[in-house]
């Protein structure tokens, strides 16, 4: 699975995700990627793209839950993403990238690793796989 989230300097947000799904999946199987609110979501607060075990991500409405925690509970993007990834989704099943309208970036996962990268206007840039 691949994905990208972006926010411009005016706070406009967007998200996109694409995948081939699971190895040896049944023909006709639908994963989380095209299910809006599961693997992909964006509103005026944040943009999210997820990857991992699609069935778990769909059950957890992962991408929408990040936005909902910000919207209804007032959490920061990092707090919301960490809650969804580490408290609300089975370990070893999900990773996500997200940006907020304020330019915050989060890359959170409960798997061993996630191929990921980010950059911000202040010059920060990172490409990483594991948590350390």
């Amino acid at each position, binding site marked *: *699975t*691949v994905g990208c989230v*972006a926010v411009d300097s005016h706070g406009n947000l967007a998200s996109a*995700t*694409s995948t081939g799904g*699971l190895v040896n999946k049944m*023909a006709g199987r639908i994963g989380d990627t095209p299910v809006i609110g599961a693997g992909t979501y964006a509103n005026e607060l944040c943009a999210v793209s997820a990857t991992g075990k699609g069935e778990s991500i769909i059950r957890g409405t992962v991408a929408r839950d990040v936005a909902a925690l910000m919207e209804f509970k007032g959490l920061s993007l990092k707090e919301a993403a960490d809650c969804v990834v580490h408290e609300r989704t089975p370990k070893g099943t999900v990773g996500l990238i997200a*940006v907020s309208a304020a330019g915050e970036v989060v890359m959170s996962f409960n798997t061993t690793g996630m191929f990921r990268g980010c950059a911000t206007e202040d010059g920060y*840039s990172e490409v990483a796989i594991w948590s350390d």
Partner: protein
Amino acid sequence: MGWAIAVHGGAGDISRSLPHDRRQPREEALRHCLQIGVEALQSNSPPLDVVELVVRELENIPHFNAGRGSVLTSEGTVEMEASIMDGNTMRCGAVSGLTTVVNAVSLARLVMEKTPHIYLAFDGAEQFAREQGVEIVDSSHFITPENVERLKLAKEANRVQIDYNAQPIQNDTKKEKPCANGDSQIG
């Protein structure tokens, strides 16, 4: 407030012993795609254009499980899926079951922009792709030798696998032996 961008190329049980020749091209690809996105944002491209541009590029890189390099179904076919969403308007588009469309994410955007719907799948999505004139190819274009081997291993284990998982999974309790190369054969 400033612009920001993030990309991913899949998550899973990525072994820390992942060989350099499997790690390095993916890291380089992420840097390359990130740079494309950064330059687009610096040029004041709308975020919706930026995410589509970057995901198209990721789809074209066979090291990742999307577009060329997509993993295979139990029947040895590809069934690609993608989606895109604009935060301002909450407009969105999604596609599933694609077998010939080079860039699924762009077809998802066309669903968003050219139809009254959110989601098209399988034959209807393929037909829509032809009506829109997007680039299509024979499905063999998407199939790599590595993914043929991954399917073979997964079928032998009678399991499905998520991105990079060393332990093929069918349910949350059964476990299989990890692959020796640390890459789990699922890209």
